[in-house]
Each structure stands twice: as structure tokens, then as C-alpha cells.
């Protein structure tokens, strides 16, 4: 065995942009893969020392423990305002936010829209799993029609609870956004594509052409009350038809 563990035999290793801290995420949760893709993108671009991240409130509130990057923890919903403050005084740095649907599309809607509208040269990573994970499975702005949550126990009723919000399509309409796309990390192929997308979005920051917005449609096995495999299947069958994957706004050639 020791014969095998040699540097020359190494085919894959954890990105150095991730710390050794054990993640608190539930088994099968998409955050782990999303963190990994973002970390690898930063690593491959060689910008670990030039990147400042902003963590949200939600399941990824402790993201700053997992990324070996200088990071700031924002108040609930305020990540893009915090990132604006950072980018405006540190314009040469790569700045990103990492936010869930409650943080970005409910309490932080105002900040999200105005940050994108100003065209702040930052990357917004938006994890959409249609539910509040950290507080225990309450309805999110992105919860699908009929989808059960602890505050919509009989399913989301559009008449009384409103419609699921496609904030990504909204920000794509704003002149300030440069690149808007929707991806997933639930298969190796999708995860690799997401990494390419994140690399591109980070590189675009140097062009100073506006906000890059990457939605990652993800799962929540614990609060969806499904096994990881069931959750991914449910996501494909229910989330993807409403939140279709692919580029929504690409830079003009």
C-alpha cells in the first residue's frame, strides 16, 4: 500500500483552497460539491491570495471555515452589499458572494437587484434548493408550487403563498449583469461544467464589465425528507423543468 502513496502516483487531491475542517453539511447535500468546484476554480486560476469571499446566513453561514480564503460573514441577505463595500475599496481583488435562496431571493432581494443593476464587478453564487435548510425546512421564495415544507405542510398554495421566484431571470434583464447562468453539481459532468462556468465568471471580473451571476440548482435531502439519490432524482424531475439549466445571458461577442 505504501508503495502506492507516492507523489508521482497522485491523480487527484483536495484543492488547497479548501481547509481540512470537516464540513457540517448533511450527507448528499449539494453544498459540498459546489464548495469544491468553486475552490478548484479559484485554485486553477491561481488567485487564492487575491480573492475575498462573503458568506451568507443559511446553511453555508460557516463557508468561511471551509474556504482557505479571506472571508467576511454578512448579515442575512446583505452579502452583495457587503461585497460591494469590499470591491469598491479593493477593486483589484476577486470578490464573490455565496448565498442560498432565502438569503439572496427573499430577505436580500433588494440588495441582489441593486448590486446587479449597478453592475458591481463581483461573482454571485446562488444556491437554489427551494427550501430554508438551516432553520429546518421552511418555505423559500423558490419553493415550487405544491412543494411541501414546514411552513407549507400541505404544499405551496400559489393563491395564498405566492409564486416561486425566478430571480436569476430577473437579474439577467438588468444592464449591469454580464454573465448569468444556471447550473447544477449533482453529477460529475454537471459539476465539471459548473467549475468551468465559475472559472469563466471569475475571469470576467478583470474585464470590469459587470456582475456575473451563477445559480446552482441544488438539493436538500434532509428537509425534502428523501435519500440523497431520491433527492437528486426529484430535483431532476421537478426543479429542472421550472429552473432549466443553461446560460441565460452570455457576454456579447
Amino acid at each position: 500500500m505504501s508503495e502506492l502513496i507516492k507523489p508521482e502516483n497522485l491523480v487527484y487531491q483536495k484543492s488547497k483552497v479548501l481547509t481540512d475542517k470537516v464540513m457540517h453539511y448533511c450527507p448528499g447535500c449539494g453544498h459540498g460539491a459546489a464548495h469544491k468546484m468553486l475552490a478548484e476554480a479559484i485554485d486553477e486560476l491561481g488567485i487564492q491570495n487575491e480573492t475575498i469571499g462573503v458568506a451568507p446566513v443559511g446553511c453555508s453561514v460557516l463557508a468561511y471555515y471551509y474556504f482557505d480564503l479571506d472571508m467576511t460573514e454578512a448579515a442575512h441577505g446583505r452579502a452583495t452589499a457587503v461585497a460591494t463595500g469590499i470591491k469598491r475599496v479593493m477593486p483589484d481583488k476577486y470578490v464573490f458572494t455565496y448565498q442560498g435562496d432565502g438569503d439572496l431571493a427573499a430577505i436580500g432581494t433588494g440588495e441582489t437587484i441593486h448590486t446587479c443593476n449597478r453592475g458591481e464587478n463581483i461573482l454571485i453564487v446562488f444556491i437554489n434548493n427551494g427550501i430554508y435548510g438551516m432553520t429546518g425546512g421552511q418555505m423559500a421564495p423558490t419553493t415550487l408550487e405544491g412543494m411541501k415544507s414546514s411552513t407549507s405542510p400541505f404544499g405551496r398554495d400559489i393563491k395564498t403563498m405566492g409564486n416561486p421566484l425566478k430571480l436569476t431571470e430577473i437579474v439577467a434583464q438588468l444592464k449591469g449583469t454580464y454573465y448569468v447562468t444556471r447550473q447544477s453539481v449533482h453529477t460529475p459532468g454537471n459539476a465539471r461544467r459548473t467549475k468551468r462556468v465559475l472559472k469563466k465568471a471569475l475571469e470576467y471580473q478583470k474585464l470590469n464589465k459587470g456582475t456575473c451571476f451563477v445559480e446552482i440548482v441544488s438539493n436538500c435531502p434532509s428537509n425534502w425528507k428523501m435519500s440523497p439519490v431520491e433527492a437528486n432524482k426529484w430535483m431532476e424531475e421537478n426543479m429542472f423543468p421550472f429552473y432549466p439549466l443553461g446560460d441565460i445571458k452570455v457576454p456579447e461577442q
Partner: protein
Amino acid sequence: MKELKLMKGNEALAEAAIRAGSDAYFGYPITPQSEVIEYLMAHNPYERTGMVVLQAESEVASINMVYGAAGCGKRVLTTSSSPGISLMQEGISYIAGAELPCVVANVVRGGPGLGTIQPSQSDYFQAVKGGGHGDYKLITLAPATVQETVDYVKLAFELAFKYRNPVMILTDGIIGQMMEKVELFEQQPRLTEQFDWATKGKVSGKDHVIITSLQLQSEEQEKVNLRLQAKYREVEKNEVRYVTHHCDEEIDYMIVAFGSCARIAQKAMEEARKQGIKIGLFRPQSLYPYPYDAINKMAGKLKGILTVEMNAGQMLEDVKLAVNGKTKVEFYGRFGGMIPSPNEILNAIKTKLIGEK
């Protein structure tokens, strides 16, 4: 070279912010302080010093932009007036919790609610007793003149970085809107220091920097609170500021007042002294830390103290704490945007302190 100018309080505050070497201002218009951001936008601070000025979409966004930029170890400020400052309280609590330096100026107007756009001192409690959630303190400076407003911008940044704590300049619509002669200090350089605690991109070989106010373990959060409390004790030991008028003479009575209200009270005191009343004036310049000891020492030799405020009696509670029963403490206040006249205060001295009918 120092310059003497005739300036409006809000504009002088803005000019002082540029000259103090600020890196950024984030704000949102609200009466009676909108001249601050108007002045900054009109006077090209970016060309002058590289200072960034941004009009945010709300006070909530403004204070969070301040939080982000302050975490980078930059000199950052925002200004607003009462309802806007209420909106900022969450962010101020985070800044205090994460121990970041910043300056917030509140050009106070009457409340509660939308209230009025006229001057008031009714945000005293909000400034010195909390405002946002959690056990934290804002170092609070109360200027009484346009000159002090200018000087306190510089002082506020010094204190903010010395203690890594938000500092509030608690002024009001009188000082903000009034034009006065002011001597401006020379342009200070912007910060070049790279602080260990600031987010600037991970330094190889060192731990990554985390700016947060979150500790999920209560034992750890208690340690944070104990550290904050130890810092506040230092602030209380070192940063008490006040001025007195005639208080070192033989006096029977004393007025305690802060900010613009103290200037009106000074006029009343002068008139009372002309009429033979032995009275002095005590003006706290720092509202947190409060000059409890100095007032307590005075109290023993006095027949009574009159607290005068443009509110319903807020600093009054601190005066009573300071006096601790040594002498009687009376109050006179106008509120809702009304300003007391020297005659009204003189009348209060006679009826409430001396007991004339």
C-alpha cells in the same frame, strides 16, 4: 495650512471626511443630512484623494457596504438621520460584534416614526444604550458647533481604529443645517497600513482572515462578550470628554446639556448669572463613555441640577445615575422638533431649581 471658512454643518462634515483621509463613504439621502452626500458627490473626492463615494439603495445597504469595506481595514463612514439610523442598527451591531472600525454620523431629527425633519436629540438612548441587538457600545461624540463636528470626524476615526469599534457622531438638524465659521484641518493621507485582521486576500503562510460576529458555541460567544466588555472598560477609562463653564467657581446650581442644546443653555446660564444666580454649565462631549465621575464630584456641592435636552428626558437618566441622590435633578425639554429658548430655560432654572412660583 489651516483654512477658515463659513460652512454649513453637513458640508463641513463631508469636507472633514475627505480631509481625514477616508477611503469610502456609503450613504442614502435623508433630511436633514442630505448635504453630506451632495457635497461629496460635487467635490470629487476620488480625484482629490481616491476616496470612493457611493449612493446606496437604502440605509440597510449603506451600513453593510460600510461593514464590508471596514473589514478590509479601510477608513469608512456613513451618515444619516434618525429613521435611517434605525434601519442601520442591525449592521451597526454586526460591525460592533465583528470589532471593525467605522464612523456613523446621525444628524438627528424628531421622532418617533417618520416624525419630523426638524432638529431633536431624541436618539440619545439609541446611540448610547444600544440601538441594535446584543451587548455592545458605540463610542458616541456630541458636537455643539460646526467646528466640533469637523474635529470629531478626525477624532472619531482615531478612536474607531484605536479600539476597533464603531464611533457615532451624534449631532442634530441645527448643527447640520447651520452655517458657522470653521477652521479645517489639513488633508490627511489615506491609510496604507495592511492590518492583520483585515480581509485583503489570503497572505501565504498565514491563517486566512475571517470577519464574523458568529460563535455557535455559547462558551466562545461569552468569551467574545468578555473581550468586548474589557475593551469598553478601557474606553470608559480613557475617552471621557466634557467641558464646563463656571463649574470651578462657587456655584449653587448647574445645568447639564449636550450638543446644540448646550449652546442655548449657555445663553440661559449667562442671563441667570447676570441676575445673580450662581450657576454653571456642564457639557458632556462624549455621551459614551459618559462623564459620570465628573458630574458626581460636582453634585456634592450643588443645591440642584437642571438637565436640558431636546427630548423627553433621556440623558436625564445618566445624570441621575451620576448624581446618585447627592442632589436634586430636574429636567426641562422640548421635543418633536421644537427648540427651547434661553428664556424658557431661565424660567425652568427659577421655577424648577430655585423653587420660585
